[in-house]
């Protein structure tokens, strides 16, 4: 509603409204926009008119707006709205740059697209922005000039301009020399080392630029002073720094340094601490009287913002409920070269969590998330629990770990309570595998589906299919593979919190494989000759509390039934018969890697597993020594003896695996790992079965295995090529048989390219070595097949991990001479 503006406001009725001036808009459109209507009552002067003016100005389309009263008859007023439209940008031309791409980039960055309104402001800011962007790259003499030219057009009322941007980059300015004056304690070389991004021009340092960038020079100077502070020169400062222009494209930097005195720590006392004693605090501060003064170190011991889980005073308080504590080191006395410190602590009230909530979960059910939270209502505030919660939520794989940021709400120092919100962002966590191809003498098709956040209780609930029943954190995968000579089907399911009370993981799997006899000469399969494997497993895993809660204990029972019908494999000496593999697997593992499961940056993983079959030979009364004897005598054939031996497979297998992740400089992460495996027999006469063996070398992809074999990756060598080195001289085993012992050591340096949820990509360089053996007689942990190389990994939630590695094998493959040379490995899934 219009209001009158005093002093002399009059009420009128609007008569005609006209729009004049230069405008490409329809008159009606403009009037409709102003909301002024003929017949409406307004005040002049009044709020309505000024609102209309503001509304039009806000559009940013006009250079001038006026509203005139053209005629007054009685209380009827005719209005004229005069608007001058800003010129519209027809095209931007950039001169002085060669690369077309760079020109397009400039247009895009400065949003100089056709149709934009050209204001003085746009011209000036564009000019400055382009010039500054060149200055940032070291072109200190860059000049930018912008002209606008009116475009003649046949259309009436056309108001378009052409923008011409002249860019003169000039020569790149390099730093010819950096001179330091006044430094005694630290040499010129040491000081120039501190200037990390501001470097002198040197012919041998071709990888680092010697450009002058004001912004970086400023932060480099600060780090120079920091270096002095670390060495005890508390008062060090740069008194003067000059940039001297040597010629058009080189400058000299001159820095005058005043070092001041070197200081030492005096007495360090604590004030205000009641929860921790002076001794306890001193242990953490770890500075002795007489130590060289180091301001940076002291600050770090009080609070180190770069490491959320550092051992410092702040974290000591923060991890034990003292959210509101503040700690300030204060210099209390300076005498000669000694500084006394007082660390003033105000502990304040202990803070307790009140409400703890999760938001943003539009797929995953509350209970799946809340059970993982280490922050609970009524608990004392602990920073380390918050940090750990974030890490573990990221590891679930349902949420984007890069955007998990806890939020403190309703923090109330008076009542000592705070609310905590964990906003999560769901990410796709299902994978589909569908492939078809020609391989192994026929068409091979695979269909695999794996759902990582499944809800099995809703599997028959039609409502839940949007598109799939999700949100209970269960995993379900189904896979089928078929070709002309084999078919394999598998189904697996796992529930991480069986019963929802404790993290007890239940996993179950079923699989069935049929392999038909393939006649290589006739290129045909014989479906009457076949080899069937049917198996399943059922396991439980429980997170332990002792020794610490990174430990997991697991147990599983697995069973496999092999059935041969007129089918000879390398495994059995008989073509008709059966074999059963029943085993109990017990494992203990510890995993505290953080934060992103695709790219861990710290922590370690350890696991020890033992897979044991029942010791049948203890009670079944078969005399295997006699059997062996009869085979030698010829009273029994090898096939008959083997059938007796392999009716129920008997063995034990022990494996160890340890992996460490360490962050080095920058974003580099070093992964170190060692693994061992051993397969043994309870009864030496019965012997180690040809099953469950280790095959070393290559990409480690499991592929199609009939016999419970373990393929161990070792890059730089062909797949499964590294049989025990002197096998032929020691045993009758062929090159196709697996080994019973292996060891492997690996170092891998990783660097991320991107860790976005859509795709995580990282590069790696590795050096590794491993070997396999037929027994402890020839076990030699130093006789390794070594290799080194580089690779790339891409993780996309829909496809899992994909990668390629190029590895050079330094040692010969057993049976050949000379180093193995380069191998290329394609990686699908997480193998290394």
């Amino acid at each position: 509603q219009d209001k009158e503006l005093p002093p002399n406001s009059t009420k009128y009725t609007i008569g005609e409204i006209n729009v004049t001036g230069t405008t490409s808009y329809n008159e009606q459109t403009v009037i409709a926009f102003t909301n002024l209507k003929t017949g409406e009552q307004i005040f002049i002067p009044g709020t309505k008119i000024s609102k209309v003016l503001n509304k039009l100005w806000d559009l940013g389309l006009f250079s001038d707006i006026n509203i005139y009263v053209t005629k007054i008859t009685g209380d009827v007023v005719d209005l004229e709205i005069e608007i001058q439209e800003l010129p519209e940008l027809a095209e931007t031309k950039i001169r002085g740059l060669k690369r077309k791409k760079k020109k397009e980039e400039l247009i895009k960055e400065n949003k100089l697209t056709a149709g934009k309104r050209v204001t003085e402001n746009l011209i000036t800011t564009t000019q400055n922005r382009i010039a500054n962007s060149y200055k940032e790259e070291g072109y200190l003499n860059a000049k930018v000039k912008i002209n606008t030219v009116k475009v003649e057009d046949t259309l009436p009322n056309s108001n378009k301009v052409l923008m011409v941007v002249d860019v003169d980059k000039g020569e790149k300015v390099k730093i010819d020399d950096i001179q330091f004056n006044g430094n005694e304690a630290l040499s010129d070389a040491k000081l120039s080392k501190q200037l990390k991004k501001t470097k002198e021009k040197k012919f041998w340092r071709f990888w680092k630029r010697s450009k002058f960038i004001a912004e970086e020079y400023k932060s480099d100077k600060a780090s120079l002073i920091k270096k002095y502070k670390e060495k005890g020169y508390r008062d060090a400062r740069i008194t003067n720094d000059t940039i001297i222009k040597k010629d058009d494209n080189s400058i000299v930097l001159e820095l005058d340094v005043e070092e001041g005195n070197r200081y030492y720590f005096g007495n360090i006392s604590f004030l205000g601490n009641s929860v921790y004693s002076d001794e306890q605090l001193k242990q953490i501060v770890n500075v002795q009287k007489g130590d060289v003064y180091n301001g940076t170190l002291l600050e770090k011991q009080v609070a180190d913002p770069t490491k959320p889980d550092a051992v410092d005073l702040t974290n000591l308080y923060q991890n034990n409920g003292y959210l509101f504590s503040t700690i300030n080191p204060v210099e209390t006395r300076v005498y000669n070269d000694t500084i006394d410190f007082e660390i003033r602590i105000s502990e304040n009230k202990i803070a307790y969590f009140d409400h703890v909530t999760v938001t943003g979960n539009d797929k995953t059910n509350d209970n799946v998330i809340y059970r993982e939270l280490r922050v609970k209502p009524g608990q004392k505030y602990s920073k380390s629990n918050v940090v750990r919660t974030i890490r573990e939520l990221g590891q679930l794989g349902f949420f984007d770990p890069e955007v998990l940021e806890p939020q403190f709400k309703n923090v109330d120092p008076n009542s000592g309570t705070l609310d905590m919100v964990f906003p999560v962002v769901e990410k796709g966590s299902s994978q589909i595998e569908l492939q078809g191809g020609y391989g192994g003498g026929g068409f091979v098709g695979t269909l695999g589906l794996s759902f990582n956040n499944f809800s099995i209780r809703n599997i028959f609930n039609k409502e839940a299919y949007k598109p799939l029943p999700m949100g209970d954190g269960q995993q379900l995968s189904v896979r089928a593979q078929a070709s002309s000579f084999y078919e394999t089907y598998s189904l697996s399911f796992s529930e991480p919190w069986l019963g929802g009370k404790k993290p007890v993981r239940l996993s179950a799997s079923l699989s069935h494989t049929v392999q038909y006899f393939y006649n290589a000469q006739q290129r045909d399969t014989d479906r009457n000759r076949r080899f069937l494997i049917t198996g399943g497993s059922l396991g439980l895993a429980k997170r332990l509390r002792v020794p610490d809660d990174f430990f997991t204990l697991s147990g599983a029972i697995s069973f496999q039934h092999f059935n041969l019908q007129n089918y000879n494999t390398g495994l059995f000496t008989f073509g008709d018969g059966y074999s059963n593999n029943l085993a109990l697997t017990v494992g203990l593992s510890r995993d505290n890697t953080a934060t992103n499961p695709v790219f861990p940056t710290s922590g370690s993983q350890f696991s020890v597993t033992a897979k044991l079959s029942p010791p049948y030979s203890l009670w079944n009364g078969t005399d295997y020594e006699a059997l062996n004897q009869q085979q030698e005598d010829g009273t029994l054939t090898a096939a008959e003896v083997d059938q007796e031996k392999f009716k129920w497979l008997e063995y034990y297998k022990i494996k160890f695996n340890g992996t460490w992740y360490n962050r080095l400089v920058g974003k580099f992460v070093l992964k170190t790992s060692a693994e061992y495996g051993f397969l043994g027999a309870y009864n030496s006469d019965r012997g180690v079965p040809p099953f469950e063996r280790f095959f070393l070398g290559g990409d480690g992809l499991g592929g199609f295995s009939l016999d419970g074999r373990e393929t161990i990756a070792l890059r730089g060598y062909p797949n499964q090529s590294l049989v025990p080195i002197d096998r032929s001289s020691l045993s009758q085993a062929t090159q196709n048989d697996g080994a019973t012992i292996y060891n492997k050591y690996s170092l891998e340096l990783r660097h991320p390219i991107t860790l976005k949820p859509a795709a995580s990509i990282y590069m790696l360089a590795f050096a590794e070595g491993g070997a396999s053996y037929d027994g402890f007689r020839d076990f030699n942990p130093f006789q390794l097949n070594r290799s080194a190389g580089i690779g790339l990994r891409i993780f996309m939630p829909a496809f899992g991990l994909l990668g390629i590695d190029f590895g050079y094998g330094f040692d010969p493959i057993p049976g050949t001479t000379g180093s193995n040379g380069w191998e290329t490995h394609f990686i699908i899934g997480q193998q290394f």
Partner: protein
Amino acid sequence: CSEYQKALKNDDIAKKYELGISYYEQAQDGAKRPKAKYRKAIKLFEQILPQYRGKPQGEKLAFVYANSYYELEDYFLSGYQFERFTKAYPDSDRVEEAAFKSARSYYEGSPRYSLDQADTDKALDKLQLYFVTYPEGQFIEEANVMATELGQKLEKKAYEIAKQYHHTENYKPAIEAFDNYLVDYPGSSYREKAIYYKFESAYLLAINSYDYLVEERLLVAKSYLDNYFKYYQDGELSVKANELKADIEERLQEYS
């Protein structure tokens, strides 16, 4: 080429308007395959909405556009479009209906209790606004039913989260969470259970404590139990409560 395809490619906005409205009206009057008709209407409306903005037909167009999404049960878009309508045409005759349908769209978009309830909160806000603006409105009854249901959903969510602390044997957090629950949702349908399980958490905490803490904690549990009986002498869970009461008294005898 069908009439629809022709209109879709034609530049004549009046034609598109007419045909779109006729599809919409046919669907409203119960023509066959109404969903296809609404979809066609939406396609046409999308093309002409900007041109009609500010014109007399614009108001009707904006309403039927939003309502088409509503009829298609695409509540995410209808909620937004109705909201826009109420802002753009506050003087319209159909603004009450639009306000209600906007709220109802958010209501339909509200997920099951165990997921994030941002849309539930939004729906409740919209309903509240409706109650305030149209206290005598024609949809007030339906709106009341919806608001009650959404409120109960939020209650269930908070209750289940607190109950999970009890289930996972995190008894201290459970007590705190039930306490918060009773303050945040007074008079909820889970009130008895919340009071009972708060007591049971305290009881289980007490009997699983170190010996020197048991008595003190049992007394706390007993006070929670007394509180339960104060309100629910013959409650759903009173049989179980009576059993535990006897147990507590027996245990406390050992300490006296």
